């Protein structure tokens, strides 16, 4: 209201005696929004949350966008002979395991022998199971930069087996990669099945004439995790080092110099078979998230889903947050939406936006998982390694519904599994161009339903929209307060009052930047430290830094009284910084920005000095202060981490929390997740500023 008056006054003053000319409508709209920012910010934020809740309703059914794919149009050529080839390999490996206790590369040799019998070119690749090191400069850099081989030990290395089938009449420009992670030392019975499926398929592909792209089968040595062998193979495929490497010196298997390639990789499928499913039928889970929320083209998921459901009769699912399935509030929301949908349906039968509550809950749980894994920024499987090379890849994890020793069902399983892969490969083989037709930015709510970027960004836009409004209105307020205090209105209003506040905001962002880099130096501290100790180290150094920053005059938000800075201006600049940070993050990783906005927007909007509220002792202001206190507490990354852990259903541990948080962060930077940067450089400074405002001595 006050701002409004001031505007009117200003208008009158500038026009100076002439009748009031109205500004342009868009300007008037802006003024109107700014003037009523408290109402609108509440409305927009509520609408943003509502839009997020509505997303499962707005999900569309997937469809095959690229016509060339034509999934399922060709009859499968896979025969029982091929499936029995697969069974034979599995049997041989099992027997081999029984007779030879463990070491060496004999199993690899056995698989290699099978591959070469199928007229494939076979080679073995050695790799080092090196751990990812945090290096601040390697964020966003290409995958080439981290292949620094340090002291190589001969004791531990993995061996991948790779077979290539050349397309009979193809030109060898493109290839399709099949990956089966397999632990050669202690692989279980179920892992053998994945080899059986792919070898059945390989036996077929060595005979067919329709191939136009070469097929590469990579049996990745998953002794050191699923991701590392695939990443090592891809690094060797794309960025080989021609210099002599120490690895070759420790030779058991002649792997030197016979690495073969097959052109640009068009798509990749990772097949894993693990533990038995609870149901009788076989369950196929699709994992697609790569690092930093990057997704493969939706068409690839569609093709697999279509073939699995309509041709092979798998039960297809994607990951979901299980704890949400039983949450009562979600059920209530779902029932409300269902009721609204029914009402709308009675009004107009064409309005079909209502879905059953159960379906809504399923969709929300899947959506939450999709958002979570994208926001986390860590690939959900070995397919993530391919994304670094712009290759579309997904992981198919099959949980067979039979015990591993059931021969009859195993044969059937090989037949169906390899028919699914055959169909997918045939579709990708049809592609003349690379995957580009369908979506890359989407969230899944079920294997056959998705929300595209155009829909899900509305929720974020609504959430964030209130920030600039509130910032503008606070700025106007702050300026007015300053004008009052200095009694020199004309000059004061024009001067850059926000500069002081900006300095403080900048100082805290700088602090956030330094805190982000600290783990690198903490890792360099010699000696073995537990994650908990490291996190304590980090916490202490960060606090010390904060104290140092606070004592520097001019930078500290607490010394503002000397300069006469109003908290409103500080809050206005904070909100602007949060707005910019969130918008930037939404470009890099949308899901992180969405979850960040859910946290940061209410915190920033509600942050107010609690001193006057306590002094006034009015219920309304006390409630406001309490809310902002709660929000600020939740907003602290460690607390939020603990709450999320609790929500996901993992046990909350009191003392080891610091250690767990450290491990979590370590995984973030190890996978080069931009979420880490977001936490350090956007969330933490804004949170600190909110704390400053909360305890502002005004």
């Amino acid at each position: 209201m006050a701002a409004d008056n001031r505007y009117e006054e200003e208008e009158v003053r500038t026009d100076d005696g002439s009748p009031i000319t109205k500004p342009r409508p868009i300007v008037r709209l802006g003024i109107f929004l700014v003037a009523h920012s408290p109402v609108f910010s509440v409305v927009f934020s509520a609408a943003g949350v509502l839009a997020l809740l509505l997303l499962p309703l707005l999900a569309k059914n997937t469809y095959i966008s690229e016509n060339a794919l034509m999934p399922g149009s060709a009859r499968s050529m896979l025969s029982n002979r091929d499936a029995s080839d697969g069974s034979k390999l599995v049997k041989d490996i099992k027997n081999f395991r029984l007779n030879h206790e463990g070491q060496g590369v004999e199993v690899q040799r056995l698989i290699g022998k099978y591959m070469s019998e199928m007229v494939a070119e076979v080679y073995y690749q050695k790799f080092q199971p090196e751990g990812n090191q945090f290096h601040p400069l390697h964020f966003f850099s290409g995958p080439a930069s981290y292949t620094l081989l340090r002291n190589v030990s001969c004791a531990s290395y993995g061996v991948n087996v790779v077979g290539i089938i050349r397309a009979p009449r193809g030109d060898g420009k493109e290839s399709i990669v099949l990956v089966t992670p397999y632990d050669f030392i202690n692989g279980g019975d179920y892992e053998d099945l994945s080899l059986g499926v792919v070898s059945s398929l390989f036996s077929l592909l060595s005979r067919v004439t329709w191939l136009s792209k070469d097929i590469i089968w990579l049996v990745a040595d998953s002794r050191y995790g699923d991701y590392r062998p695939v990443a090592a193979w891809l690094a060797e495929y794309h960025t080989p080092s021609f210099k002599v490497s120490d690895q070759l010196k420790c030779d058991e298997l002649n792997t030197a110099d016979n690495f073969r390639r097959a052109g640009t990789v068009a798509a990749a499928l990772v097949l894993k078979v693990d533990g038995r499913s609870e149901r009788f039928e076989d369950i196929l889970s699709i994992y697609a998230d790569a690092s930093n929320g990057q997704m493969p083209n939706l068409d690839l998921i569609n093709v697999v889903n279509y073939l699995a459901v309509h041709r092979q009769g798998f039960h297809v699912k994607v990951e979901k947050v299980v704890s949400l399935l039983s949450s009562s509030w979600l059920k209530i929301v779902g029932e409300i939406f269902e009721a609204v949908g029914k009402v709308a349906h009675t009004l107009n039968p064409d309005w079909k936006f209502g879905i059953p509550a159960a379906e809504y809950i399923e969709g929300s749980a899947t959506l939450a998982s999709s958002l979570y894994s994208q926001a986390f920024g860590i690939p959900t499987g070995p397919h993530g390694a391919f994304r670094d090379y712009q290759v579309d890849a997904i992981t198919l994890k099959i949980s067979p519904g039979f015990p591993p020793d059931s021969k009859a069902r195993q044969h059937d399983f090989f037949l169906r599994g390899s028919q699914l892969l055959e169909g997918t490969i045939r579709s990708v083989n049809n592609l003349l161009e690379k995957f580009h037709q369908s979506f890359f930015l989407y969230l899944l709510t079920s294997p056959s339903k998705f929300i595209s970027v155009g829909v899900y960004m509305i929720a974020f836009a609504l959430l964030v929209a209130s920030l600039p409004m509130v910032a503008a209105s606070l700025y106007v307020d702050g300026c007015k307060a300053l004008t009052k205090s200095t009694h020199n209105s004309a000059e004061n209003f024009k001067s850059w009052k926000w500069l002081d506040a900006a300095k403080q905001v900048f100082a805290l962002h700088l602090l956030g930047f330094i805190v982000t880099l600290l783990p690198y130096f903490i890792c360099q501290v010699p000696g073995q430290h537990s994650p908990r100790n490291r996190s304590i180290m980090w916490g202490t150094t960060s606090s010390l830094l904060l104290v140092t920053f606070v004592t520097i005059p001019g930078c500290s938000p607490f010394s503002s009284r000397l300069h006469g800075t109003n908290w409103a201006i500080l809050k206005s600049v904070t909100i602007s910084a949060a707005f910019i940070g969130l918008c930037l993050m939404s470009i890099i990783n949308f899901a992180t920005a969405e979850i960040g906005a859910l946290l940061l927007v209410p915190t920033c909007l509600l942050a107010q000095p609690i001193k006057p509220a306590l002094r006034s002792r009015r219920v309304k202001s006390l409630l406001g202060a309490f809310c902002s206190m709660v929000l600020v507490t939740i907003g602290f990354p460690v607390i939020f981490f603990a709450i999320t852990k609790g929500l996901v259903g993992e046990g909350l541990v009191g003392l080891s929390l610091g250690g767990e948080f450290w491990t979590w962060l370590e995984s973030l930077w190890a996978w080069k997740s931009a979420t880490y940067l977001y936490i350090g450089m956007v969330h933490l400074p804004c949170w600190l500023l909110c704390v400053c405002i909360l305890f502002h001595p005004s």
Partner: protein
Amino acid sequence: MARLVRSWILLLILQSFLVSIAFGSKEVEEFSEALLLKPLPDRKVLAHFHFENRAPPSNSHGRHHHLFPKAISQLVQKFRVKEMELSFTQGRWNHEHWGGFDPLSSMNAKPVGVELWAVFDVPLSQVDTSWKNLTHALSGLFCASINFLESSTSYAAPTWGFGTNSDKLRYGSLPREAVCTENLTPWLKLLPCRDKDGISALMNRPSVYRGFYHSQRLHLSTVESGQEGLGSGIVLEQTLTVVLQPDTTSVERNTQPSWSLNSLFGRKVVGRCVLAKSSNVYLQLEGLSGHELKNVDSEIEAHKLWKNADFELSLKPDRVLREISSFLFIFDIEKSSDSEPFDLGLTWKRPSKWLCQLAPLHASRFLMGSGNERGAIAILLKETESQEKLNLTNGRCTIKVNIFQIFPWYVKVYYHTLQIFVDQQKKTDSEVLKKINVSPSTDKVSSGMMEMMLELPCEVKSAAISIEYDKGFLHIDEYPPDANQGFDIPSALISFPDHHASLDFKEELGNSPLLSKFKEKSSVRSYTEVLLVPLTTPDFSMPYNVITITCTIFALYFGSLLNVIRRRIGEEERFLKSQGKKKGGLKQLLSRFIAKIRGRPIEESSSSSELQSSVLSSKLIFKIILVAGAAAAWQYFSTDK
């Protein structure tokens, strides 16, 4: 009329007869056909059709030819082509299993798609023009998009790296050209018997195109007569090389599959092309065990050769030639007829294995790096189990390797980043690089070219050459329709100038053009793979966005321009002053509405207007409710049906 025509025909026949008698003593046009069959170690069979057409140097024929295709001779005369080779290829030559050291593979293993090179006999300034015209003529002749080689961004002028040293040589290739029967049919039309008779009758399209490798080649060269006043003769050599997989009925995996011409092609030879001077079928068997090489003089021994414990031929060869590591069985198909067709068959009795002669080094090429910004091209040379390697120069055993490579302009190669690794040790250029010739590309004008000669030690295990590049941006209309597929980098040519592939026969050959071709010494050469570079592509499916953005910009531009030109601020203010008291109804309403939301009375409003406006607003609300109600009712009733 009919009588007149008949007499004309008679006259013509007489004339041609007379002409042939008159020039009978001199060289005449000759045509010969041959088919070479060769079982390959990986259970496939190679069939190599070879047709040679010679037009002797003469000026007396004028523009007339008996056998020689007129289209080709016109081409040669018009564009003054000295030598030319055009090949259409589908599939990859498998250097490891199909050989890389024999003349057959080094001449007929061609890069995927179309390859064309030509040497012209015109002044240097006219070479490019002749090339462009030639590409268009060939494009029409062979139903292929050879005319795309006309653009200066797609061809290059190699100096020495290609093997033929001439500054009038032009080379270009189209890796993406699809090869099909529409290219084979015009090629067959150049043969005097087409595919109606003789060996070419075997070319059953489905079986030819079912093969694993398919390369049709046309090579022509002019022969200078050396005599004054005589024109030059032309030699046209047409070959078709296919690698076929015989249908395997045998269960045994180790035995080579048995085959016959009928099972391979689905047809039999029912007689030779009567216009051909010679028509032979050859069968080359490599790597036969040594005991048979001892003595083949007597008839019994010869008989043993084609009917023994290892294999059996269905027909008795007319002659058997011996080479160092192989046998050549020669069959004359003259005796075959409709009643007794020529159907050569080979039956394997025992499992047998042999190795092909491999090139000294196996070359492969691949792209390095990821992303849409930059990358590197690497050529990897690896040692093979080749027999012939020794080549002493200055007391040191070395292998000379020529690499010839064309880079399209959108692959911006940085030649200074050339790195050479020999046996995983980085070498300086002076150590291994004998010669290098580089012509950088110009954006959108010409393609880049690199020729280099490496001298590697004989005991080399592997050698790698890498060179970095930046990916260029194309203009929107330069993208092909399938831009998202990526762009091709044509094959590189790896040749070994000191290694010569030739078949060294002990016996006298007779005048078989195919065998004399094989006896010629030609340097060993192989082509690398075609590479696919993904470039950044604009989102072509978004013309809508472009249109909207353009329209918005236009609207903004014209709107502000009109405002600047048309509006007079002073006039408007005066107008406003005069209009100050009586406002428009809508405007008043708006201000009232705003005031209401702000919760403040309008400053300048009088009591009368307030009264009026309250009436007005209630009227308006009523109206809105009425319209909304009508809409809802209509919606309800209209959709209920």
